[in-house]
């Protein structure tokens, strides 16, 4: 841990991997859970310290710039809160006997490994390394999705695994192509993969190669982002895995893939002759949004419901980045952050709910606000937030996206609004049935801490009404960076 004080970047990477090794061997639930929390907190702290200390020079492997620091901090923060949530959640799972201590050890180790993978993906300055990191994160989540060993869980994991592998392959091919494009300019070997060098010379790259590369990268990482029609793994993985993992998947892993996409979008944007990635992203974003919105109506499993809502929001974000421009990019970033916070908060709530009620069937859950006021209203606020109602954060980003789009591309904005309204209808429909009406199901009080959920919601609420000026300046800078 001494390194953490020395070099935060190293800490961000080392703390998780070391604690993963430690957790793999340590027995006992209480200790490991606590250790998990502590490790995540340390990671978060060291990530925060990235703001204060002067940044390390971009090396061949590591890079810290304005873009990824946002992601890292968000990532480590949600990782931290989720570890708190997972402590109480896993305790219940142990009592319920759905997990054995062995798997628990495995779970914690995997958790930290995944955090490591994601952080690595963020800080890596090398597109090959980034690829590796994303795959590490993916494969660990695959293993965790299947951790319950139920038929359903294995199915989900398997599906995730196969589709993920294809995605991996695509991403790799794209990466190779980028290298090929870069080689004549930046020369052979390591340099051909170093992001900072690439971005400097991208203007001279061979556009035709870049185009093909982008398509493969888009599909490869897009599979992880969960863009329709590459989304198939996402709902089941969310629904069958342990809820903390669902939270992390929605809140973080999707962002990792998105981050990779953004990197390459910037790369392409630099090259004048390459295709504009915008239309592609806008199309896929809209398709995902509207498709997911329709799918929301027929969901019966509460976790699948919110998994689809994640697809929907990823669609919105990709749409925003596809539109580009300072406003839309700002909105996209904001939306991404807000969605991570909100969606993970919702999954915390859903986790407690499904544990209390002993089911994930929506129609078996009713009148939560009556039986569990705190949980129920928290859930209400979360869903209201994710549905894009003020005074919560997502409203602001949606406001910016829609209004800025309508002024530029009215038809696109209309389609976007259509999707938003559809999704809104579905979510509120479920909300009214779950949170209100005659209570149904168990009324047992949950012995769980709502702190993570409430913390997230508080942040979202605050962001919806007041964004601190430094953060705004930061975002605007990043937005300009995204072009």
């Amino acid at each position, binding site marked *: 841990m001494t390194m953490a004080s020395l070099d935060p970047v190293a800490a961000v990477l080392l703390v998780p991997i070391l604690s993963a090794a430690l957790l793999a061997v340590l027995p006992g639930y209480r200790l490991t859970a606590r250790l998990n929390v502590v490790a995540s907190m340390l990671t978060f702290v060291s990530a925060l310290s990235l703001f204060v200390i002067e940044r390390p020079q971009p090396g061949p492997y590591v890079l810290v710039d304005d873009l990824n620091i946002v992601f890292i901090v968000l990532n480590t923060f949600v990782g931290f809160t989720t570890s708190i949530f997972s402590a109480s959640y896993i305790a219940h799972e142990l009592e319920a006997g759905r997990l054995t201590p062995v798997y628990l050890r495995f779970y914690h180790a995997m958790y930290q490994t995944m955090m490591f993978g994601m952080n690595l993906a963020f800080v890596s300055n090398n597109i*090959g390394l980034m690829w*590796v990191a994303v795959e590490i994160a993916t494969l660990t989540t695959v293993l965790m999705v299947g951790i319950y060993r139920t038929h*359903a869980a294995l199915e989900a994991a398997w599906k995730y695994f196969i589709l993920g592998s294809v995605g991996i392959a695509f991403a*790799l091919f794209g990466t*190779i192509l980028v290298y090929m494009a870069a*080689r*004549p300019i930046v020369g052979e070997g390591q340099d051909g993969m170093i992001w900072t060098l690439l971005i400097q010379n991208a203007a001279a790259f061979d556009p035709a*190669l870049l185009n093909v590369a982008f398509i493969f990268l888009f599909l490869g990482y897009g599979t992880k982002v969960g863009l329709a029609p590459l989304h198939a793994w996402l709902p089941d993985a969310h629904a069958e895995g342990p809820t903390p993992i669902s939270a992390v998947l929605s809140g973080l892993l999707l962002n990792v893939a998105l981050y990779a996409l953004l990197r390459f979008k910037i790369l392409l944007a630099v090259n004048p002759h390459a295709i504009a990635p915008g239309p592609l992203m806008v199309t896929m974003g809209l398709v995902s949004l509207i498709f997911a919105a329709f799918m929301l109506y027929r969901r*019966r499993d509460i976790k699948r419901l919110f998994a689809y809502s994640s697809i929907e929001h990823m669609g919105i974000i990709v749409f925003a980045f596809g539109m580009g421009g300072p406003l839309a990019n700002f909105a996209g970033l904001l939306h991404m952050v807000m969605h991570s916070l909100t969606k993970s908060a919702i999954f915390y709530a859903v986790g407690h709910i499904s544990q209390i009620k002993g089911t994930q069937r929506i129609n078996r859950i009713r009148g939560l606000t009556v039986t569990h006021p705190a949980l129920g209203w928290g859930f209400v606020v979360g869903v209201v937030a994710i549905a894009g109602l003020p005074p919560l954060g997502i409203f602001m980003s949606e406001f910016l996206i829609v209004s800025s789009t309508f002024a530029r591309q009215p038809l696109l904005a209309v389609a976007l609004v259509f999707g938003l309204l559809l999704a809104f209808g579905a979510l509120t429909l479920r909300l009214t049935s779950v949170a209100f009406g005659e209570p149904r199901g168990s009324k047992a009080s949950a012995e769980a801490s709502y702190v993570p959920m409430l913390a997230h919601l508080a942040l979202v609420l605050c962001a919806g009404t007041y964004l601190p000026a430094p953060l705004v300046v930061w975002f605007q800078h990043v937005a300009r960076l995204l072009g």
Partner: protein
Amino acid sequence: MQMHSLAFDISHTLAGGLVLISFMMLYQDRLYSLLNVFALHAVVLALSVAWQAYIQDAPHLYITAVIALVFKAIVIPVALHRIVKQLGIHRDIESAVSIGLTMLAGMALVALSMVLMLRVTADADPLAREDLAFALSVVLLGLLVMVTRRNAVSQVVGFMSLENGLVLAATGAKGMPLVVEISVAFSILIAFIVIGIFLFRIRERFDSVDVSALDDYRGERR
């Protein structure tokens, strides 16, 4: 980076050979023969990688070649033979699309990849260009195998041939770092898949592992 024509021709022939073998895979309708063809595919890949290692005098590529040879050309096919026996998967492949159509689609894909790749501006060295074109077609053909075959084993085979395409591209890319690591990583991935098939007793096709089964558990039924 002047490449004298012999070397060029050889690597070109090998790459072309890979594409050809991918086509052979497309019209296999017996499982065992498919596996054998795949073994051949792997061998040719190994050769081409080795050749690349030689002409680029990049010794680390030999490792990749060896992996390809040992792991893909021998271990995996054998393992799959075993599985086919043990799980009593019957021998002939039911394909979703008729062989003829598949062949036509394959042609189209190859044409597509050519069109895309030969756009690459001339100053990129021709070898890389040809290689990429072939690699892309191998990748696409592998994917085609995956989606047209209803049989888990043949789908794995498809995936592996796709991955061969990747390795071909990676090795063709002169001085590309991490190639070895990547090929190792992929071999592990494939091992996982094979083990998965074995563990989960996925007999006929991935379809038996279909999500509708999830719904017995979670009531996502229509």
